[in-house]
């Protein structure tokens, strides 16, 4: 075999391998970016609804203690969360349902975070969001953790979500882009100065 031809094969082969490796890297990074952006949008939408609901805890309820359930992953409260619907103050529930895994995605970690409440001008029902972690903490006015419904003045919501699809790091390892978010809500209607 001609030595020149053999060297050309080797150099060409190396070149081809580097192009293929580069292509894989570009593909992975594109996937990661696309999935991260999708995840950010999903979090943004979810936070909008959480913001709306939690800031309106007790609104128009006419009662001093609007909470029915306050646990780590389950909250049930009264509030008029959307003023233009046919409901006045009604029950709103947010809970993380670990008995209901998301089966429509490849991600093995996600479960449904569910919101039960008004979902239209005259309809009441459940909407659900994939999440991997949802945690609630309740505080008194001075920032002490409490389990007493009458003493709750602040509600801390912590949320972690991952994308349904993964990007590949190597043949044995896939990664689901993850986002964490935490906020302490101080709803006006449970903090009135009288």
């Amino acid at each position, binding site marked *: 075999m001609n030595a020149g031809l053999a060297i050309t094969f080797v*150099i060409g082969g190396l070149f081809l391998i580097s192009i293929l490796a580069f292509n894989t890297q570009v593909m992975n990074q594109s996937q990661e970016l696309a999935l991260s952006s999708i995840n*950010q949008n999903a979090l943004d939408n979810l936070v909008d609804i959480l913001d709306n609901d939690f800031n309106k805890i007790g609104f128009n309820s006419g009662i001093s203690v609007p909470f029915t359930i306050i646990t780590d992953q389950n909250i049930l409260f009264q509030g008029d969360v959307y003023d233009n619907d046919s409901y006045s103050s009604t029950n709103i529930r947010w809970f993380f349902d670990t008995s209901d895994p998301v089966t429509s995605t490849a991600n093995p970690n996600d479960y449904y975070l569910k919101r039960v409440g008004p979902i239209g001008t005259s309809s009441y029902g459940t909407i659900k969001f994939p999440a991997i972690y949802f945690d609630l903490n309740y505080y008194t006015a001075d920032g002490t953790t409490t389990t007493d419904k009458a003493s709750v003045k602040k509600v801390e919501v912590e949320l972690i979500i991952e994308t349904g699809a993964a990007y590949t790091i190597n043949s044995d390892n896939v990664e689901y882009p993850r986002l964490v978010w935490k906020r302490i809500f101080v709803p006006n209607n449970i*903090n009135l100065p009288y």
Partner: protein
Amino acid sequence: MTSYSEIFYLLGAMVIFSFLSLNTARSFNSSRQTVYQAEAEYRAIAVAQDELDKVQWIYEPDDLDPESSSYVYTRSGSDKYPKSLTQNYGANDQYTTTFIIDGTSELIDDSGSMKRFQVTVSVLNQNVTPEVFVTLDYVKSYTY
């Protein structure tokens, strides 16, 4: 001579290819950094909103007056600003981010029957490069 020119062609192609791949990698890295910055900014905004929520429940105008001894954004004492806040995330607190929170208040209007204070809260996250800095304003009014 022919074989030498082929080597030069090959070298040229490899140099061009490496420039292209470097630029692509740089571009992706910059996009990824933008995404991470946006995520860090999102968390910093939540922290700033928490801080402004506290301002809603300040009932005494003196607490927002920089000249008063009860000024909440004091620069001295154990409760002075800027403050450092470490937030843990996750079931086992496996993620940690440290924020530096600062606040100022300024009397922007005193009509004789009403005082208006502009409260500015800024949050700095130094866990990412470049640092994320968020500023939120809130106007609080008191009638007297």
